[in-house]
């Protein structure tokens, strides 16, 4: 067999069912050997979306998503998706073609130093020199991508290496001397956590995306219910607990809920679980009181103490560490503090009233998410649509909210939804309802992927919030730059419903809430992709 076949066989051994990709000359040997292997190739319409789709797949399947692209521009187009996955700790294995190894470094056609360019955005990368190394490298790549703090791994394979005859040896265990992630929390630290929680008057948990990476949603619910500690979440942590859960106080940070931010400033012990408290949770470092004791549980020791001074670090897999804490039968905290926050939370009524112009997007997200089947997967793009979604979504147990929290990459949702849908078909007993929610800006960065949905029969529903503006930037210009609006008008944009129709996708537009509700009903019953364009007033605020 040749190197290309060795890659494919290794992928099969890793249980890969799908590759998201876009072919080209230097990856042609790999594509040549794909037919008949049982691995399904999903042809996207832009390499960036191959990465996003692999990311969406990974987040639902709980194992690495795979994408393949060609060298040069194919690979550089993929960079944004790698960076997105890196920031959100999503496991991806990306295979890129590379020019002939004898030509490396000579700036030949479609040559790019992609391992160099991707270095800041990958957990690890390989430039393969010998075909016989391929099985080991693929095995290591899956191991590195999916263990510890997950992330993207890049395998760059020169075209001649793909064509070299080699023997296939997939035996042997992965043994990387410099890579031994800590899974179990330090026993002494666990006891200190228990002691600190015991003495806490107003303890609070801030949960992040690490819960999903650790597949710890059920354990998390059990944990918080046992200790009776209220919970706030980062953007990436939304859905770690059902949004209607009595202990859930909302999202923290710049675009979060006031109850959640107040809770942060009132807490005397703050337990961060799988959250890296980035600057978007910026209110956090400022609001956290000097005397607040911070306990930080994270798989990545480098995240602990990076953004917040930590009183008690616990390095380990969050699921394992929560199990360890529960094994000591921690005492249930009193209801007083929870009651205080609940009262605050209930005192706030959401901004769900009617609008004179267009549809209230916040009320729409609430109605939409409540109408969806419980185990829905909701992919939010970036912009105001993301904040309306994050702030108003109703998530029940088993539901997922996928968005790009770290990079904030516009054009993420449709491709990620496609990957998520495929993952749910592969890994779930029951099919899951998948919806992508975009703004009219982000839709135009990804609308070519409607073709991907159609070509491969991927049943993803798409909602486009149409306000004719780059709404989030418009809002910054309004608030910070004296409402001087520059380059945020999307005049000249096409009608999303007509665009959908051009791809053979049914759809409808909604100018009023009645029409939007009819649209939601149609979306739920429609077989195959469907697009609902919801008109939103251009002055609508994010919060």
């Amino acid at each position, binding site marked *: 067999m040749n190197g290309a076949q060795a890659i494919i066989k290794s992928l099969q051994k890793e249980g890969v069912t799908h590759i998201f990709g876009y072919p080209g000359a230097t990856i042609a040997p790999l594509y040549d050997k794909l037919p008949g292997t049982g691995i399904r190739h999903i042809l996207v319409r832009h390499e960036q979306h191959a990465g996003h789709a692999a990311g969406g797949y990974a987040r639902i399947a709980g194992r690495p998503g795979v994408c393949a692209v060609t060298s040069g521009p194919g690979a550089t187009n993929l960079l944004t998706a790698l960076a997105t996955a890196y920031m959100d700790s999503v496991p991806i294995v990306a295979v890129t073609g590379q020019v002939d190894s004898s030509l490396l470094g000579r700036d030949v056609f479609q040559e790019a130093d992609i391992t160099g360019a991707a270095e*800041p955005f990958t*957990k690890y990368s390989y430039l393969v020199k010998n075909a016989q190394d391929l099985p080991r490298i693929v095995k290591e790549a899956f191991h590195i991508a999916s263990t510890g703090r997950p992330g993207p791994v890049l395998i760059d394979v020169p075209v001649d290496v793909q064509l070299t005859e080699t023997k296939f040896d997939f035996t042997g265990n992965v043994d990387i*001397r410099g*890579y031994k992630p800590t899974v179990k929390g330090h026993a002494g630290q666990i006891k200190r956590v228990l002691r600190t929680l015991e003495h806490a008057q107003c303890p609070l948990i801030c949960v992040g995306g690490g819960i999903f990476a650790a597949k710890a949603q059920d354990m998390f619910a059990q944990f918080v219910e046992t200790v009776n500690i209220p919970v706030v979440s980062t953007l990436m942590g939304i859905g770690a607990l059902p949004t209607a859960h009595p202990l859930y106080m909302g999202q923290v940070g710049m675009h979060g809920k006031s109850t959640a931010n107040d809770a942060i400033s009132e807490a005397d012990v703050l337990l961060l679980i799988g959250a890296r408290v980035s600057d978007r949770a910026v209110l956090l470092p400022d609001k956290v009181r000097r005397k607040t004791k911070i306990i930080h549980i994270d798989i*990545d020791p*480098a995240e602990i103490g*990076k953004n917040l001074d930590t009183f008690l670090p616990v390095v380990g897999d969050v699921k394992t560490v929560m199990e360890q804490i529960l094994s000591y039968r921690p005492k249930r905290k009193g209801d007083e503090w929870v009651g205080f926050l609940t009262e605050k939370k209930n005192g706030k009524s959401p901004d769900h009233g009617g609008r004179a112009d267009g549809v209230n997007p916040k009320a729409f997200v609430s109605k939409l998410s409540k109408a969806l089947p419980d185990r829905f997967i909701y992919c939010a793009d970036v912009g105001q649509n993301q904040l309306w979604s994050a702030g108003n979504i109703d998530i029940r147990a088993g539901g997922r909210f996928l968005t790009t929290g770290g990079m904030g990459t516009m054009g993420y949702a449709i491709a990620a939804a496609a990957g998520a849908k495929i993952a749910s078909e592969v890994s779930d007993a029951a099919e899951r309802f998948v919806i992508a929610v975009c703004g009219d800006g982000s839709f135009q960065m990804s609308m070519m992927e409607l073709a991907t949905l159609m070509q491969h029969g991927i049943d993803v529903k798409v909602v486009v919030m149409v306000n004719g503006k780059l709404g989030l930037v418009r809002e910054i210009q309004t608030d910070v730059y004296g409402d001087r609006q520059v380059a945020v008008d999307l005049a000249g944009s096409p009608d999303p419903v007509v665009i959908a129709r051009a791809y053979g996708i049914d759809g409808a537009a909604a100018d009023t809430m009645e029409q939007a509700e009819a649209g939601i009903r149609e979306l739920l019953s429609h077989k195959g992709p469907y697009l609902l364009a919801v008109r939103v007033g251009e002055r609508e605020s994010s919060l």
Partner: protein
Amino acid sequence: MKHTIAVLVENKAGVLSRISGLFARRGFNIDSLAVGPTEDARISRVTIVVDGDDYMAEQVTKQLNKLIDVLKVRNLADSEITRRELALVKVKVDESKRGEIVDIAKIMNCEIVDISHTTLMIEFDDRPERVDLLIDLLSKYSIVEMARTGTIALQKGHGSV
């Protein structure tokens, strides 16, 4: 404050660029960096001197540890280590100054390794601050060019990274 950090890494292509890229990306200032083989051919030792506070030193250590090709990282306290640097300095000399420069070399225990009608080349290995002193002394004359290695360091006694 200066921190001397010893890093054991896999001896393979691309590792040094991963390390130096990390420093550039995260805004850590490198004073010096020295790389060389160790007693184990598969492992290289990188000695990095960085200038910054304890927070920065901790971040450097954690981020280095995160690199998959990095095997061990140790922030070495000045009191527990022996540090060395090597310098080669070429000084312009005329007849009248040669004696003075030779005196300096003798007092500092340097070796004169090359001589021409107009220049002297001085080799010196010692603690970094002694190398600084020599260069300061020679700067009174005309230094044609010089090359200086980064600091390397080993723990005193039986301890090791």
